[in-house]
């Protein structure tokens, strides 16, 4: 995965867990929480999706590294460089009662 693909991967996860939000206009350096409605349970969801989709285990002390998209790429790219991009959101209906 390239750095650009890591951005796509993170945006795809955000679209899954925050389906009311628009991710197209997210800026790279602003905190994600300041741009869209994300709370601590959502960040746990991001971590869970990274674990499910890419086998990446983010320890609790590193959660702060995921605050912005740039932070996500800096932290995740070394872990995802050898892994292919998955896009999960396109396959699930937003109104479906998805349990994750």
């Amino acid at each position, binding site marked *: 995965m390239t750095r650009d693909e890591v951005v796509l991967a993170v945006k795809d996860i955000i679209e899954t867990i925050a389906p*009311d939000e628009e991710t197209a206009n997210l800026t790279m350096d602003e905190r994600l929480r300041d741009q869209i409605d994300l709370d601590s349970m959502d960040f746990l969801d991001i971590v*869970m999706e990274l674990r*499910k989709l890419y086998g990446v285990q983010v320890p609790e002390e590193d959660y702060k590294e995921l605050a912005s998209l740039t932070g996500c790429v800096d932290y995740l790219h070394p872990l995802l460089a050898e892994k292919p991009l998955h896009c999960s959101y396109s396959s699930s209906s937003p*109104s479906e*009662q998805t*349990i994750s």
Partner: protein
Amino acid sequence: MLARVVITGVGLSSPNGNDLADFRKALLEKRSGVEAYEIRHFGKTVAGVCDFDALRYQKKKEVRRGTRAGSIAVWCANEALRDAGLDVADFDPERIGVYTGTTEHGNVETEHEIHNVSQHGFDLRFWSHHHNPRTVANNPAGEITLNLGLKGPAYSLGGACAAGNLGLVQGVQMLQLGVVDLALGGGISESIHTFGIFASFAAQGALASHADPTKASRPFDAARNGIVVSEGGCLYALERLDDAVARGANILAEVVGYNVNSDGTDFVLPDSAGQNACIRGALRSAGLVAEDIDLISTHATSTPSGDISEARAIHEVFGDSASVRVNNTKSYIGHAMGAAAALELAGNLPSFTDGWVHPTINVDALDPECSVRGLVVNEPVRADVDTILNMSFGMLGINSAVVVRRYRP
């Protein structure tokens, strides 16, 4: 003297209607809401499935994060307020109570999580942090408070299949105690999304089957063979009479009596003696006698033994009552579990104004042991209805009965 409490709004989702007008129309047109259904591990069966638009009142994230029971509850709460012409902004949010009756809660979400971790070698690092807030017993009531910003007492009442009456009764009591000024009370069921409930009824020999799903739920019929599991919900907007009159509310009914008791005899088998005592207690609390009841909304679930037990209790209490009518709503919608009592009462409330009693349908050959006086079979009948007795019973021997009356000043 306790304050009089009235119903001023109904919010519901039933397998055959998403508001009271649609639901009533389906009942008078004899339209079933039971359909073919398939669920993980159990396979093909039949069930009552609801089709309300969850996104009318919830964001996508709320639907995703919450439960099906929560979505049903949020739908019913908003619809009840709309029907009552009430805006929660006009109330002190600490004085609005929410009381959701549930048969069970958490099985659906637990089964989902076990399935989820099974896909990851049972590694519990994949077990969701959403599991606990989804499975706490107050989940459906709590999701309503989050959705509407309510601050008052809100919780579930676990009462097996009698729970829908319990939610209504709790709302009445909290209004009479003066703890709340508005109560949303009734019952909720997401039960069709747990394979366990189907498997357990099947193991018990109590799950309905029929080539035509719409004929699977057939209380009092000689060929009945079990329960049709359904999802659904119904919440009532309840107010003290004085408040309802002061704001010029449309009063749908007055709750004049109720009773809840226990058989104390068996895990699953009903006991007509306990049911008899429950009904008599409800009549006493309403200051009425059997002859005062115009319409009995039965609990009968289409099981061979349960329907007979209930018929016996009705015969014992109402056998001398010449004008009483008896009907059943599960024959249309199956058994909506925690929502059953609330939905079944709701389906009958319009009889105060439209002058009809809907029948129990799917009776091809009436079981002689279920042939109670006044049973309305297969075709609606005209009747002057002023008083309704709504019965609902559940496992571990819980019995409930609520008496409502056409509002008279």
